[in-house]
Structure formats: structure tokens, C-alpha cells
């Protein structure tokens, strides 16, 4: 098989990316998914006509179109996941800031700030 420079670069990038994320994500399921995706990526780089075969089988014209659709759908799920995480974080930040605000309440006045007396019972 004749290996193109582009294939070397792509496989190199996938390997670097793979190792980097492997160190960051310690959850086993994340690592398995990552390993499979990287492996799949390397296989597709070495045998690009695979995408064409699969695509034609399910009624899509080009292999690249198949990859694109897959990427779009994957991205949509990823964005939805991030949005949910962010919302959750905001909720937690609110609870923290609220508790801090209530605990550190002061009373204003001519004498300047005094702490509010603690809770009774």
C-alpha cells in the first residue's frame, strides 16, 4: 500500500490527540470510547474507500458526506451535553453565592457595617 504524507500527518495527529485525552479522561468508559474512535479514525485514514462503501450501502452519495453527517450528529449531542453541564454549574454557583451572602449578611447604619446576629435555633 502506498502511504501518502497526508495519511502520516493525520495518523500522527490522531495518536497525539489520543494520548493527550487518555491522560485527561480517567474514566474507563471514556478511555474505551476514545480508543475505539482513534482506532476507527486511523483505519479510515488508511482505507478511505471504506467510507464510500458504507455510505453507498445506506444511500449516501459520498464517503465524506457520511463522515460529515456523523460529525454533525455527534456534535449536536456534545453541545447538548455541554449546555446541560453549564446549567448545572450555574445552579451550583448560585447556591454557593447565596449561602455565602446569607452567612455574611451585615447591618448598615451610621456606625458602619456590623455583622447580623447569627440564627436563633
Amino acid at each position, binding site marked *: 500500500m502506498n502511504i501518502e504524507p497526508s495519511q502520516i500527518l493525520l495518523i500522527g495527529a490522531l495518536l497525539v490527540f489520543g494520548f493527550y485525552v487518555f491522560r485527561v479522561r480517567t474514566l474507563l468508559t471514556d478511555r474505551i470510547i476514545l480508543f475505539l474512535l482513534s482506532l476507527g479514525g486511523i483505519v479510515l485514514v488508511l482505507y478511505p474507500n471504506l467510507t464510500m462503501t458504507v455510505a453507498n450501502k445506506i444511500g449516501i452519495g459520498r464517503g465524506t458526506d457520511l463522515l460529515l453527517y456523523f460529525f454533525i450528529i455527534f456534535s449536536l449531542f456534545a453541545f447538548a451535553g455541554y449546555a446541560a453541564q453549564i446549567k448545572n454549574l*450555574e*445552579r451550583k454557583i448560585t447556591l*454557593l*453565592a*447565596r449561602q455565602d451572602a*446569607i452567612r455574611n*449578611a*451585615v447591618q*448598615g447604619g451610621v456606625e458602619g457595617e456590623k455583622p447580623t446576629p447569627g440564627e436563633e435555633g
Partner: protein
Amino acid sequence: MKIHQPRAAIIVPAYNEAQKIGQVLAKLLELDFPVVVVDDGSPDETSAAASQYPVHLLRHACNLGQGAALQTGFDFALRRLKPACLVTFDADGQHEVADIPRLIEALNSGGYDVVLGSRFLPGGSAPHMRTRRRLMLKLAVLFTRLSTGLPITDTHNGLRALTAEAAGKIRITQNRMAHASEILAQIADLQLRWCEVPVTIVYSSYATQKGQSLLESVNILWDIVSGKMK
């Protein structure tokens, strides 16, 4: 230790109101109710200005939004002051202190859980309100009527009175400006007894700057919709 149970506690959420809050607090204190100011992480001197007055002052470590500030004020007041009712009041000088006793009176004599201020009822007024603002508010009224079924005439009025029990049942999760719609939705869901009372909203050039833009209204709508999808 004396357990002080006031007839009412005034909750004042504030963000960047160093200019106006002094005047507002001075007038509010004439009513002789405890006042709870929640500084929503203002970068200006709002807290310094408020601390000149004998009010309870809480500070969010970061800006969360008026809805969050209100809920913080509710939690503090209900837990520490144990008032019979809560009144929400804006810090920018748009509300009239003179309207507060009428809200509390309506709450007590009418047996309501929530009394809402309305600028659109006969007896209420909103001099110098821009037409665009009036249009957006009217659209909001229509939206509320469709989504909650409540025939409320002024859905974005920060002047309200709630019994302590009603305030305890309401849980504001919308930090930012969608909280107004969320409160109404909860009033409907919890089947709270409510009524509206005419109030005056004072528009100055200062206040108009801080009003909501069309873009913010779109954001509010999105917050409401995505909130319902949880």
C-alpha cells in the same frame, strides 16, 4: 434574645445602583419595616452606599441576576426576620414607596397569597413610558395569558407583596430576567390566590437606559422555554 417578627420585610435586589439606592432606602425606611438589600455583585459602590442606612445588606460574590438576588433575599428574610409578609421593591427609583402600604393592606384584608402591582390598571400609571416598552409589555401579558392562563395586566412589575407562606412555597430558579415569568407560572401551578393593585411606575431617563432591549426579551423567552424542558 428578642424574636422580632415584623409585619413586613422589604426585599430590594440591587445591581449598579450606587447613584439611586440611597434615596430609595431613605424613603423605604420611613415605613419602619426591615429592609433587606441584596447587592448582586455590583462592581460599583452600591454596597457602600447601602451600608450608610440601617438595612440588612447581603452581597453576592458574583453577578447572578435579579431573580437570584430576590431568592437570596427571600431565604434570608424568611429564615432570620420571620416577617408576616415580604414586599419586593426595585432599587432604581421606579417604584413608589407610597404604594407599599396598599399592597400589604390588600394582602391582609383580601386574604390573598400574592398581590401584584400593575401600572396598567385604572388608578395605576406609568408616565413617560416609551411606546416600544409598552408594546413589549403588552406582548408579555399576552404570552403569560397563553402559557399560564392568568389574566394579569402587568407581568413585569417588580413591586409585589407575598405572604411569608407563599414566599416560602415559591422557588425562583431563573436567575436572570425570566424570573418574573417564572413567579407567575408558579403562582398558577401552586394555585395561589392573587390579585393586582394599581401602582405608579416612574420613568426617568436614568431608568429607561436600564430597561430591557428586544434582544433581552428573546433571551427571556428562551430561558422560559428551556426551563420548561428540564
